[in-house]
């Protein structure tokens, strides 16, 4: 058994990035990649559902459901890292955000599938197979764009400027991550670094030096981007409580 906050943190990461990706549905640069990103969105939202269902059970309150956790909490209750809530920007920024997060989630789930919490371990084992595809897809696109045209390389460098400062937070444990069932973040950081270095080198993108990073998302202190996302995602349940398809 682990803490509800830990489960919510994992669920929020998956839901928020899944929602961001779903904003591309119908707007992708070409049909095949629109479908690819929509599939990744579906995987992440599906993973989020299992995690919210588990978090709801952990509360022991029948009125708490996966839906109430997703649609009725405000920004300060969300425990996602800042990286996943960042606005889509252009295709390059969306790709780089996915790559940074998939590289993290891949090594994270690899560890979590051996967690002492059996529920989280099962969700991780299931999700890892999906994230393997996400990581390969986003790595290849990072290389394709970084090592593409002058224009695509320029956009990837701009995306790096906007996103790199949010990557440090991934490896700084919040208070609820210091439990036995949690993944030891210091053990996956070198694996993430290695993967990112390898891909950025092939993409002809310079890896920024370690420096100041923005943190706070895991503790509920978010960038303004999250508020806009929630306003859209939660509108229907706020305006028409309990409404169903």
């Amino acid at each position: 058994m682990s803490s509800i906050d830990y489960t919510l943190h994992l669920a929020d990461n998956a839901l928020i990035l899944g929602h961001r990706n779903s904003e591309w549905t119908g707007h992708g640069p070409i049909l095949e990649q629109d479908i690819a990103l929509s599939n990744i969105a579906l995987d992440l939202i599906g993973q989020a559902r299992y995690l919210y269902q588990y978090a709801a059970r952990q509360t022991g309150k029948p009125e708490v459901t996966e839906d109430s956790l997703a649609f009725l909490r405000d920004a300060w209750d969300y425990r996602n890292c800042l990286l996943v809530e960042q606005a889509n920007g252009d295709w390059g920024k969306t790709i780089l955000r996915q790559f940074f997060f998939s590289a993290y989630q891949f090594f994270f789930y690899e560890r979590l599938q051996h967690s002492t919490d059996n529920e989280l371990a099962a969700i991780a084992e299931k999700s890892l197979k999906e994230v393997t595809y996400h990581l390969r897809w986003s790595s290849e696109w990072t290389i394709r764009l970084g090592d593409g045209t002058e224009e695509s390389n320029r956009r990837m460098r701009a995306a790096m400027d906007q996103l790199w400062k949010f990557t440090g937070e991934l490896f700084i444990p919040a208070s609820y991550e210091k439990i036995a069932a949690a993944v030891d973040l210091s053990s996956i950081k070198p694996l993430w670094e290695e993967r990112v270095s390898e891909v950025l080198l092939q993409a002809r993108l310079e890896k920024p030096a370690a420096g100041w990073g923005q943190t706070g998302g895991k503790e509920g202190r978010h960038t303004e981007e999250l508020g806009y996302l929630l306003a859209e995602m939660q509108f229907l349940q706020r305006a028409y409580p309990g409404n169903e398809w």
Partner: protein
Amino acid sequence: MVNTKEIWSLLEQVNDPEVPVLSVVDLGVIRDVRTRGDEIEVILTPTYSGCPAMDAIRMNIRMVLLQNGYKDIQLTTVLSPAWTTEWMSERGKEKLKVYGIAPPLPLQQVCTPGLFHREEAVACPHCGSYHTSLISEFGSTACKSLYRCEDCREPFDYFKCH
């Protein structure tokens, strides 16, 4: 007393709504059927976490059992061990091919995060040629990728290994 064999044969009638030639038994998502007196418990596992067909599948299982007079039905979802295309029946793979979808190959090293993996040798379900190429790893549903046959020039879905 409930006859487990009969439940399994009823489950053969429940098809995957997105790949309607496959029953849920062919697909390998039914892990077990347990009975206690008149109570039936169907243990199932999802293909992909976000597969929208799973909700429809659960509803259809319940409908078929209700239509056949079973009332005490419980559907339990398990995630571990995670579903794999290795669990698809041989009959299911045959049916997929006839339907125009290339069936999954045995699990290979492609299910790794390695970059620009060597493409799998997937046979075209229309003409049988192996002279095919990958268009996109993500197809019309999470479980499929999109290929093209370089001989008969037809595009086709490949039920990717997972």
